[in-house]
């Protein structure tokens, strides 16, 4: 997979993640892999705002995918995470890409607006 193909894949995955019910936001991952990917992108001249937020790295056995998400407070986080996993798998299957591992982390629970007090 070329770097461009990787970026396209990451963008597609990010789109699927955002569209999943219960997801309120996608955040920049703080993992080591993500840092390395960003460093690589920077070296190639990709601007930070153009980088996908979801990390996709290629290995011999397939892609390593990492995403950090925000979730809505009124949906169980476990349910949201499993829904995101299904959405990511769907994208990979469509693209014919094998997955080596997937790491999904909730980094923020978005509090609903407080109920008006009588």
């Amino acid at each position, binding site marked *: 997979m070329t770097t461009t193909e990787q970026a396209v894949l990451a963008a597609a995955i990010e789109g699927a993640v955002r569209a999943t019910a219960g997801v309120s936001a996608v955040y920049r991952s703080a993992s080591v892999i993500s840092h390395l990917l960003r460093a690589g992108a920077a070296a190639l001249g990709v601007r930070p705002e153009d980088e996908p937020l979801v990390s996709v790295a290629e290995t011999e056995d397939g892609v390593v995918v990492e995403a950090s998400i925000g979730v809505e407070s009124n949906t169980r986080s476990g349910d949201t995470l499993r829904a995101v996993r299904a959405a990511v798998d769907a994208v990979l299957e469509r693209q014919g890409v094998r997955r080596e591992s997937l790491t999904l982390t909730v980094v923020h629970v978005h509090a609903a607006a*407080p109920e*008006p*007090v009588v």
Partner: protein
Amino acid sequence: MEDERFRRALEHADDRIVAGRAADGDVEAFAVLVRRYTPMMRAYTQRMLNSSADVDDIVQESFVTAWQRFGELEDLSKVKSWLMRIVSRKAVDRIRALRPAVDIDSIDRPAPLHTSPSAVVEMRAGVAALGAALRELPDAQRECWVLREIGGYSYEEIAEELDIPVSTARGLLARARKYMIVRMEEWR
């Protein structure tokens, strides 16, 4: 509506509560600390440096350091003196950057007149006299005095902070105290 009242509650809450949340990563609580302690840190920095240049940078850098180092603060209720320590260190760093070594020969030479505080301060006349006398001290003596009498540093801590022997710190402080006592008694 409810949200608004809670935000104001945080503004007035005890240091321990506010610092606890800031230490946990709550940016709103951290902003409360910035509002609460910026005036004190500015006043203290101005006294350390005897000028108002660089004060904003020093106070800002101090807050950034505090955010990074909240994990080191054991007793959250002591956040105020912890912030004072951080700003002392930054102020001294700035002083040392501008003046690499304490010039022992100059310890008796009076400091040139620096800008006085921009606001007209309403205070007891004795306190005002102290402020004026402090401005007259040579730099090294003033720094020792401020660290000790306002910052609460020990002699050893002053020596470490200013990178001078403890005996020099004691000597500078003794000189500063004598000058201040005499000026204050004069005023009386």
